[in-house]
């Protein structure tokens, strides 16, 4: 590892965070303009600023070349008490470089889209200031060199997603969805807290670079139990943030927020932060095959569950939301089979085509005057040609149409899964096939057949502000695949080089994992099988829904089960929420009002009562007084006699 740039310090990185932060402050506190154009432009400029600086940094320090070390930006010391030393320093590695480009690039495009989408808003500055705040929080998460800094970004994005999901706060269910997102994320964050405490206690450092070098050394004296706990806790935090089973329930409800929010936060950036952090700390995970298996099967389960639910959803954004959960499952499967490169590759490609799909859906919803029901749409391809074209490209990318971005990343995961074991490969293939089915169902219901409602018939194409970002993303969805192609096709491994270069010299080899190598023939066969399966199912789904007339969706036991999300929310409600709320209500009432206050009032009343009782003894006539005195002296005489007996 050439030491050319290792450890060089710069002050550029902090500007990547400061630009969106500045935008947020300007919009939120200073300008607060009612006009969409002004607040939109300020916000977009801020996000573009971040993108430009990222480009500058990437161009200066290189991205995909072998000899990259890491660049630090020693900004300020947050706090340093006893064992916990948290300098708020930023770090640039090829991995973070890539993520920077994706986050700021797609972020800028989505800001432009939002300027078109958020038309009749009375306070647009609030939306754009939250969006910018989110961007800066995400960049803190990406760039921070210290795990507590990462956690700051982690909860910062949680806050912004809460604010943005509940943006239209006038309706209570939006705020409820926001709160559900925040609380579920916080349940995950408890894992992050535990991981931080364990690392502070046993590794007594929280700097990612030191952690990796500390662990990389064969002689890492940490007991396996400790490492297991840390990684398990980190994975639990990722299930919270990256919506894996059991903490995925918040993502579908998060669709209550405006569509640009769903595109940016719940498709491209925030939900992938769990995987990003796992890839960044990969040398830790590589030492624990048990955790990797755990990831594999949780990812697989989530992929399947979400895909099944997505089959029968009526709302276009719910379909895309469950598809995101499913794709995230794919990424965790990639990590589980021991290939962080495949996972990160899928993160990047997914960011492009899922953002594209969401924005496409946004444009459709905008055209359909906020009616999101697939069965109310139909025949929009004639009325919204650009949206239709870009949505089609996105759909092709996600189902893995050859040479699209999805094809390359999904096949890499499937290839790695095959290396790991045929069972994993088979199940994953099934999930991919399901993806093809529900994506095509959504696409055909929306764009093909006849308009099934008044809105659909008068739908109109969105303004250029919205279609230009769609086209840019479509381009990305087509071309981004070529940064990491399999050996048989063009054999480009730029991404692999970049990712492997960002672990500060420690190798990413998974212990006890035979690096099996597929022969060219098997690779070709795998590619062929996956493409054939998914494309045939896609065509079948296209045929099935092409001329769907009625507004009703499929019925039957399985369909109802899937429609109602397998009643997971209801199960959580009865198993967790009701008992907790019951215990809370009763613990407070019993302990505070009855036990503690009860005893206090009892004491006060007895005092008052005994006072009344005593006053009977004070009759007020002198004879009784004299009697008392006589009694007192008699008793005292008795005592004196008894004492000296």
């Amino acid at each position, binding site marked *: 590892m050439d030491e050319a740039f290792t450890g060089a310090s710069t002050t550029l990185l902090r500007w990547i965070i400061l630009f969106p932060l500045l935008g947020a402050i300007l919009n*939120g506190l200073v300008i607060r303009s009612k006009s969409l154009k002004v607040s939109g432009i300020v916000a977009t400029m801020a996000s573009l600023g971040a993108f430009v600086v990222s480009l500058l940094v990437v161009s200066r320090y290189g991205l995909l070349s072998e000899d990259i070390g890491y660049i630090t930006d020693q900004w*300020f*010391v*947050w*706090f*340093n*008490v*006893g*064992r*916990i030393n948290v300098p*708020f320093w930023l770090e640039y590695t090829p991995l973070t470089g890539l993520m920077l480009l994706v986050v700021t690039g797609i972020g800028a495009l989505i800001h432009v889209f939002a300027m078109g989408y958020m038309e009749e808003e009375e*306070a647009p500055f*609030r939306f754009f200031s939250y969006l910018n705040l989110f961007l800066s929080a995400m960049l803190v998460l990406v760039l921070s060199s210290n795990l*507590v800094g990462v*956690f*700051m970004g*982690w*909860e*910062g994005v949680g*806050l912004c997603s*809460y604010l943005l999901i*509940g943006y239209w*706060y*006038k*309706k*209570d269910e939006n*705020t*409820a969805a926001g*709160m559900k997102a*925040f*609380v579920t994320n*916080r*349940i995950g*964050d*408890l894992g992050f*807290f*535990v991981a*931080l*405490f364990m690392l*502070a*206690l046993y590794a007594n450092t929280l700097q990612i670079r030191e952690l990796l070098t500390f662990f990389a050394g064969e002689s890492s004296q940490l007991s396996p139990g400790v490492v297991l706990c840390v990684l398990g806790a980190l994975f639990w935090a990722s299930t919270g943030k990256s919506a894996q089973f059991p903490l995925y329930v918040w993502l579908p409800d998060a669709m209550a927020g405006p569509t640009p929010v769903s595109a940016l936060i719940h498709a491209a950036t925030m939900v992938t932060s769990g995987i990003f952090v796992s890839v960044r700390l990969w040398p830790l995970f590589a030492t624990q095959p048990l955790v990797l298996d755990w990831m594999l099967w949780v990812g697989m389960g989530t992929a399947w569950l979400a895909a099944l639910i997505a089959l029968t959803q009526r709302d276009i954004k719910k379909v895309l939301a469950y598809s995101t959960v499913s794709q995230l499952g794919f990424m965790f499967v990639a990590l589980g089979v021991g290939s962080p490169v495949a996972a990160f590759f899928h993160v990047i490609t997914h960011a492009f085509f899922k953002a594209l799909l969401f924005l496409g859906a946004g444009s459709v919803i905008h055209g359909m005057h906020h009616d999101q029901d697939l069965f109310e749409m139909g025949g929009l391809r004639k009325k919204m040609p650009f949206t239709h074209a870009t949505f089609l490209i996105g759909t092709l990318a996600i189902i893995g149409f050859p040479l699209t971005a999805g094809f390359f990343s999904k096949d890499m995961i499937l290839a790695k899964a095959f290396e790991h074991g045929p069972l994993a490969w088979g199940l994953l293939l099934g999930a991919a096939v399901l993806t093809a089915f529900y994506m095509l169902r959504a696409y055909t219901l929306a764009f093909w057949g006849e308009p099934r409602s008044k809105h659909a018939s008068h739908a109109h194409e969105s303004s250029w502000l919205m279609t230009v970002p769609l086209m840019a993303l479509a381009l990305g969805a087509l071309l981004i695949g070529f940064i990491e192609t399999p050996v048989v096709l063009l054999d480009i491994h730029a991404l692999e080089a970049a990712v492997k270069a960002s672990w500060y010299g420690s190798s990413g080899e998974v212990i006890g994992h035979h690096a099996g190598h597929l022969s060219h023939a098997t690779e070709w066969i795998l590619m062929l099988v996956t493409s054939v399966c998914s494309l045939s199912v896609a065509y079948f789904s296209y045929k099935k829904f092409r001329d769907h007339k009625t507004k009703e969706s499929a019925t039957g036991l399985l369909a109802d089960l899937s429609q109602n999300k397998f009643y997971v929310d209801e199960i959580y409600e009865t198993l967790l929420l009701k008992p907790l*709320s019951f*215990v*809370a*209500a009763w*613990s*407070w*009432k019993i*302990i*505070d009002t009855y036990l*503690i*206050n009860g005893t*206090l009032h009892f004491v006060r009343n007895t005092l008052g009562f005994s006072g009344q009782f005593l006053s009977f003894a004070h009759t007020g006539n002198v004879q009784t007084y004299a009697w008392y005195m006589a009694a007192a002296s008699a008793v005292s005489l008795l005592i004196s006699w008894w004492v000296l007996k």
Partner: protein
Amino acid sequence: MTTLMLMLWPLLSGLFLFCLIKVPTRTVQWVNIALHLVWGVFMWQSWAGFAPDQLGTVSWSWEWFPSLGSSLALGVDGLNLPLIVLNFILSLLLAFYSLGKEKLGASYLALFSILNAGSVGSLLALDALAFYVFWEFMLIPMYFLIGKWGSKNRVYAALKFFAFTMAGSLLMLLAIIALGTEYNTLSWNALRDAQIPYNGLGGFQGLVFLGFLVAFAVKIPVWPLHTWLPDAHTEAPTGASVILAGVLLKLGVYGIARWCLALFPMASQDVAIPMMVLGAIGVVVGSFAAWKQTDIKRMIAYSSVAHLAFMVLGLFAFQEEALQGAMFQNLAHGLSTGALFLIFGIIYDRTHTREISQYGGLASRNGLLASAFVFSAMASIGLPGLPGFVGEFLILSGTFFSNKTIALVSLSGVLLGSIYMLSMLRKVVFGPVGPTLEAHEIRLQWNEWVAIVPLLVLMLVLGLQPQFIFEKSKFAVEWILALMTSGWGV
């Protein structure tokens, strides 16, 4: 000399304000602000002149009862300086808040200054008797503040507040007397150097320690002794609520650090686990109770119970991170809960109801105030970037280092905190506009903004740059923890 003026100035200004009873309230309120600014000069001098390794240095003392070995010794050091400055800041902001409020006249402001004198006095006191005198002295003005300017059943709340604290502190009086007669000196430095021998909780040091501990446990309040806090907070006027949450509760935490840990380290170690268990219970039960309240101020009061239970954990974990975290959480909680009470107080001045069901849709009635309220709520549930997180993270990590199970149980407090605070925000700030907000116009005067904004700015500063506070209390904390392992008096 400045240390004496720190305590004496509010006392004198209090007495002076009493004489202005006949003067129109507006001028009295401005005079009050001027007096606070002068007080600020002394504050600045003591803050600037503070040497980090000051601990127990008596900068002013008057031998008032030589036969008891006691003298009115006042001194600034790492433990009490941050709290004194917090007291000044909150009091100054409340002075601005009271501008233009007819009800908050000369007698209210006078009692407030005397309360400040009492709280700063007990913070500065480095002599057991002086500490006790100021500790009790605070009760009288607070009793009248709650009793006279509170809301409906304020008399019950005021009496309960007085009785609880008085009962606790009478035990402390016995402990102080025992110390005085046993060592015939009451100065903190002398008692500290005497290294009081320790032979079990039943022994002399044990009983005296328990006397002190109970008095501070009532004041903090530690879980089973906390039922006076919701009543006192609910009935107290806004100013008294802010000062009660910001400073008076912290005196319990400060008292344990100064008088329990420093003088009786061995006894504190014996009582550490039970206190931490009480802390953990306090966090969970406090959060449960806060979740289920229908009265907003009572809900914030129970959230204070949960936050202060965290500080009890920090105190008795005997780790540097935990103790520094607890001392820092003093400030963080003071600012965030102070801001919550202040903002809600401003709303309450217009709507005169505390029922959550009446509220809703504050965001659509006054956007800026709503965002300030959400900001403070986020600070109170420990969002990183705001001081609550730094304090809670340090306390929890310290507790984790010393006892894993208790740390994990109290970690749930972080989650429960977000549950009750967000459910409150959902019912008050977001959603459709509630009946009382429909009926009343929430329009803030300039002085109310002047009262709120500095709190928010301070929260941001402390959230991102807390190190300068840790530098101040570093020496004192390290010294106390060194005692724990010194094994004296065994």
